[in-house]
């Protein structure tokens, strides 16, 4: 009995990894916990794009892509376990969709030499490829987002924010704290005052924070939230009748799950984004034909076309393009993680290429180099139309204020290099 049990235990623990061969892109997802509603949609989009490539094109360059999924529940310890259990299977790249897990993995991937792709999240200063050789965060990062939101407000106010009051409601974690430094610098530059209002995870309870907002009467409120915190914040904002058009979320606070529970009260809420939304792109014809109709969609395909589904799909698209580039550079279709790094560094997704892929004008142009792992940082604004139940894009892609951001990125990445004992590469 005891030996049987031990054997079962051993067998269970060994059975974690999928078979070697093929291209392996693990999906560290979370479909449970306070962030599960958001994580599910992203993971579905990520899975479905690779399923589409496998079904329609026979993989990338003739190699089938395997996407083993591992549940992290947005928990760093489980994230580490997932990373360790999948890295032995020849994993090419990781996309954990959690800033906390990203911080955990940055030192590990640098030693294991596996690229880490963190679009729109993670450590902002990873944009500096001289220091962060294995980390990529194109097309945009948190500081780009902060600057993008302020630029939008500048445009709205005729280029002058002097004397305005802006409040930042943020998830009290590494993720939420990321934009503070940039916003402080921007406040000094443009003369607005910044109030920082932390919300402890998971953020269901925000009464006191919104009471403070009600009392201080800021002109604009920015939010860096995730999961259930977004819904609670938008509900509270509606409760105190804060004008929704003056309430702007980062791209992680701008999906359907965040606004629909508030109903008509959320009408006019704005959020940044770095990609398109909805099913009006040619790719969805193929997706329907090859993935959804044959019943191969991840978890039944109920979220197709939502904001987070599109974002997961976009992340998968960038990874698959990097794999294609790496195959081209290496001259072989069975690439290694190191070759994929080179693929990322020479990645150039032009608007024409996006159109070829069936997603015209879906995202900004992504061009990465050895020293720029973050692309252009362009983002655009979308606004929620509660009556129609859809997000409308209200601005074109625009550049963030690199004059403020570039020195900050250099400073932060150099501090990391010093702390971790890294000598920056020559590019």
């Amino acid at each position, binding site marked *: 009995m005891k030996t049987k049990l031990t054997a079962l235990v051993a*067998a*269970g623990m060994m059975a974690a990894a999928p078979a070697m061969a093929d291209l392996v892109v693990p999906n560290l997802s979370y479909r449970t916990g306070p962030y599960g509603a958001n994580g599910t949609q992203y993971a579905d989009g990520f899975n479905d794009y690779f399923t589409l490539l496998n079904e329609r094109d026979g993989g990338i360059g003739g190699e089938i892509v395997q996407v083993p999924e591992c549940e992290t529940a947005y928990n760093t310890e489980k994230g580490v376990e997932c990373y360790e259990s999948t890295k032995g299977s020849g994993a090419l790249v990781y996309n954990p969709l959690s800033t906390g897990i990203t911080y955990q993995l940055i030192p590990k991937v640098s030693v294991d030499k596996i690229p880490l792709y963190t679009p729109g999240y993670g450590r902002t200063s990873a944009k500096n490829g001289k220091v962060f050789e294995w980390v990529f965060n194109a097309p945009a990062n948190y500081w780009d987002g902060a600057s993008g939101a302020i630029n939008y407000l500048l445009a709205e106010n005729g280029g002058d924010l002097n004397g305005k009051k802006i409040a930042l409601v943020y998830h009290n974690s590494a993720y939420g704290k990321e934009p503070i430094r940039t916003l402080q610098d921007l406040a000094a530059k443009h003369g607005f005052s910044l109030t920082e209002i932390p919300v402890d995870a998971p953020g269901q309870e925000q009464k006191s924070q919104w009471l403070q907002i009600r009392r201080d009467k800021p002109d604009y409120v920015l939010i860096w939230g995730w999961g259930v915190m977004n819904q609670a914040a938008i509900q509270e904002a509606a409760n105190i009748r804060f004008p929704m058009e003056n309430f702007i979320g980062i791209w992680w606070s701008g999906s359907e799950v965040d606004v629909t529970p508030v109903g008509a009260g959320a009408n006019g809420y704005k959020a940044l984004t770095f990609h398109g939304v909805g099913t009006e792109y040619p790719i969805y014809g193929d997706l329907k034909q090859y993935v959804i109709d044959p019943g191969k969609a991840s978890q039944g395909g109920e979220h197709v076309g939502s904001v987070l589904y599109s974002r997961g799909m976009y992340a998968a698209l960038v990874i698959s393009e990097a794999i294609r580039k790496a195959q081209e550079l290496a001259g072989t279709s069975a690439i290694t993680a190191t070759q994929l790094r080179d693929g990322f560094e020479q990645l150039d997704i032009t608007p024409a290429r996006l159109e070829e892929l069936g997603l015209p004008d879906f995202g900004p142009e992504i061009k990465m180099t050895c020293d720029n792992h973050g692309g252009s940082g362009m983002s655009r604004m979308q606004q929620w139309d509660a009556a129609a139940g859809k997000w409308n894009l209200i601005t074109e892609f625009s550049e963030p204020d690199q004059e403020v951001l570039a020195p900050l990125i250099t400073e932060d990445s150099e*501090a990391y290099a010093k702390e971790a004992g890294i000598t920056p590469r020559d590019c």
Partner: protein
Amino acid sequence: MIYREAGDFKTGYRDDGQTFPIRLDRWGYYAALAVAFGIIPFVINDYWANAVFVPFLIYAIAALGLNILTGYAGQVSLGTGGFMAVGAYAVYKLMTAFPEISVVIHILLAGGITAVVGMLFGLPSLRIKGFYLAVATLAAQFFLVWLFNKVPWFYNYSASGQINAPERTVLGWAVTGPATSAAGKYLVCLIFALLLAWVARNLTRGTLGRKWMAIRDMDIAAEIIGVNPLTAKLSAFAVSSFFIGVAGALLFAVYLGAAEVGEAFGINKSFLVLFMIIIGGLGSIFGSFAGAAFMVLLPVLLKNVLVGSFGWPTDLAAHFELMIVGALIVFFLIVEPHGLARLWALAKEKLRLWPFPH
């Protein structure tokens, strides 16, 4: 038949008082040590170290610490996560401020700092008991997490509030930082766990441990027979917090490598360690290890069986995992409220009589 005391003669007080009075137990203990030091370090890989052994050993240390306070001295604490955070931030500040000093000394010092903080938050225990004390320690949990989030000095003013463990070596081997080998991580945790378990075992069967147990069983009676509640309770808080501080330091520096206080040391951690000692067995050294093993290994095992072998969707498996672990906790509490340690003791009793029970 095999497992018995007959023929194992004790010829002195020292023999009589030893931890493993039965020869087979002793052999088992030495065999476990030989495997732990002689075999595992050579075969361990990153997955086994990071998913199984290192968290098990670190949580065993934390469970030992909480068991001293709750199991032996009877003071209920919900501040474990906060005290682990003290250990983690203390070791981080020490590692970055004095890089030339060995990290082992830093981990021990972090334990010492946590002991001082623990004593401070133990002061209310002199006036309040039971659930009320639990609430006071809960306040410690929330206060400490808030403090490490609020004051940038603790995280060296980094933009994100994260702390990252720089690389440090012991005898030329990296034990913290990303380049650490699986065996290095495992061995440093194993040595700490073994030494601390040895200290705990000897403290709890000496004068100090008897004082703690006297306070736990009836504090007024203990006071009448000459136990000073002030020193007994505060020493329990100090020793317990030392253990928990070391566990927190190891969790951050050796296991995670980067941490964020709200996520890594939140209230969930306090409950996790409390469940470990309840399931393992209150007032038992073996129980601390058994409880840690149960709470760390079972989810990993279930995940691998459900997702890896049965091919279930990951979310379904994650929900089932919660349900199974929860159901097992309830089952254990009903069937054996004294935990795995008691089950183990019963099994040994039965084995001694086997095959001729009364």
